[in-house]
């Protein structure tokens, strides 16, 4: 379904390919340069900042950072918090998204709009009361508290996305199941959920990445390595010591690798889901 009927080798097609190539380079080259820097010896980086050679590469910088940054523990916190956020957002978001997709009742539009408006409120405004609330609930500086705070922000997006995925499934499927004697719960559980699994994977990855990436809430709600996540640890590490370039880029690579894995795993579905959601606006 080409937009225009022109041949693949027309000048405009070449121009488009060059343009796409430039876009890809703009997006990926910085990351590639960072990865390259992280395995170069520090002396090389300082002596030949723009040099490009493949001798003497090694993982010394990673080893150094691993040794003095409590990295495994902070990384563990990041994983646990992102995972909890994902489970909570996905469970609640799937239920709510299903209800908002299938049933019609008074106030449905209002609820959808409300979830949209939630994102308008400045995070900083909510941050202070949430800090006080967490203090009262004894959840300050805990991984669960952090995950709860993230869930409230990721849940609206999860609900909108899941509603979009449910909307794309024909209702006849559930009706057929109901006629065959399935309960409402059974129809949802046995018929609809298995079909919407790719959508759940995409939504879950998106939510997990959002939790993984946050700095602001983690900085405020955590106060020790007990619950501190890796991005915050990294910020504090870089602020505290003047890190050599190789180690700075190595810490960057260490926090981007999980995102790249998640993105490679669900990226295609995620982009498709997001574009589908966009159309419905």
């Amino acid at each position, binding site marked *: 379904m080409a937009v225009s009927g022109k041949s693949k080798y027309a000048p405009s097609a070449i121009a488009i390919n060059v343009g796409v190539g430039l876009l890809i380079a703009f997006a990926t080259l910085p990351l590639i*340069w960072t990865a390259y820097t992280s395995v170069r010896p520090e002396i090389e980086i300082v002596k030949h900042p723009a040099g490009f050679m493949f001798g003497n590469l090694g993982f010394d910088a990673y080893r150094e950072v691993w040794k003095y940054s409590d990295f495994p523990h902070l990384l563990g916190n990041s994983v646990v918090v992102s995972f909890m956020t994902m489970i909570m957002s996905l469970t609640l978001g799937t239920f709510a998204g299903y209800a908002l997709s299938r049933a*019609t009742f008074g106030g449905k539009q209002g609820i959808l709009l409300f979830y949209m408006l939630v994102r308008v409120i*400045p995070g900083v405004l909510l941050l*202070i*009361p949430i800090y006080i609330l967490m203090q009262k609930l004894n959840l300050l500086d805990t991984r669960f508290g952090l995950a709860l705070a993230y869930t409230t922000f990721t849940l609206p997006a999860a609900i909108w996305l899941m509603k979009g995925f449910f909307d794309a499934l024909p209702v006849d499927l559930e009706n057929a199941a109901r006629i065959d004697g399935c309960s409402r719960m059974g129809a949802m559980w046995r018929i609809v959920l298995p079909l919407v699994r790719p959508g759940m994977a995409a939504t879950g990855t998106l939510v997990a990445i959002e939790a993984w990436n946050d700095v*602001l809430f983690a900085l405020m709600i955590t106060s020790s390595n007990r619950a501190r996540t890796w991005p915050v640890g*990294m910020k504090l590490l870089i602020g505290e010591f003047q890190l050599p370039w190789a180690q700075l880029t190595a810490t960057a690579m260490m926090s*981007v690798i999980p*995102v790249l894995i998640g993105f490679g795993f669900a990226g295609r579905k995620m982009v498709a889901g997001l574009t589908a959601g966009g159309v419905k606006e």
Partner: protein
Amino acid sequence: MAKVGRKVGYSERRANPLARYLNILEGKAFAWILLIPSLLLVSLFIIYPLYRGISLSLSELELLKGPDAKFIGIDNFRTLLHDPAVANAAKNTLKYTVVGLISQMALGMAAALLLSRESKFIWAARIAVMLPWFMPPVVTAYMWRFMLDAQYGIVTILVSHIGIDIGGQGIWANPDKALYGVLFVELWRSYPFFTLFILAGIQGIPAELRESTAIDGASSFQHFRYVMLPLLKPVLFVSTILEAIKLINSPTLVLLMTEGGPGDSTMVVPLLAFKKAYQAYDFGYASAISVAVLIAISGFAMVYIRSVGFGKEK
């Protein structure tokens, strides 16, 4: 009376009225059971904090002085109006939002047009282009701080070869340039958001339209200007408003890259509020600044919606 609509199956329509009524009730109850947990959670962590935040903005609460909030009416807002730090931050936020929106929209649109062409591996290109949007801001921030470093930054060195001299002190130490440095990184990170939305919009436009305008002799540009752009208007409207809100609200990138400096040349309003809360523990004043941001955003949204005339067309 609410009805279950699409959910009523073929067999149920023939059932007796009482059974049908019960079925509707059951469907409605089922929907609410599914909805209530998420509504509860959001109420606890958003509605209540929002209420608390607004009431804090009318109080004096500095944790370093004591744990109790004292009601002081609109005093915080009076202070805020005469605070030169707030005025400076407001000016920077305005610059950051306007320049950010225009640059991201332009590049986002160009990228969406380039990526809208269907071919076998275009999905891979689309994913690669979206990547910066998913990157941890910490990584983005330090990666670019390194690449734009005055002495060792690869970008600084490369552009000096084509005659652009960033200067001895570089971007980050220069009060006139630092904000634009962050804006460039914000562009790199955030324009895919526009691309995503516009691409979705373009894919919703039937391909036959281009064929018929081509028969009428319209150039690609005319097709874009007079056919695509009007059709993309709703998408552009929604994406602009969402991105504007994000740019005004989120201080993450500025916090990580410059912390408002050098001096206070890159201090934006939410970062000022965050610093007041996080470093000075002045929760009352920080809340007042945040409430002012919320009011400004609501005002901006209303003016924008009016000026675009959205909703009138319906």
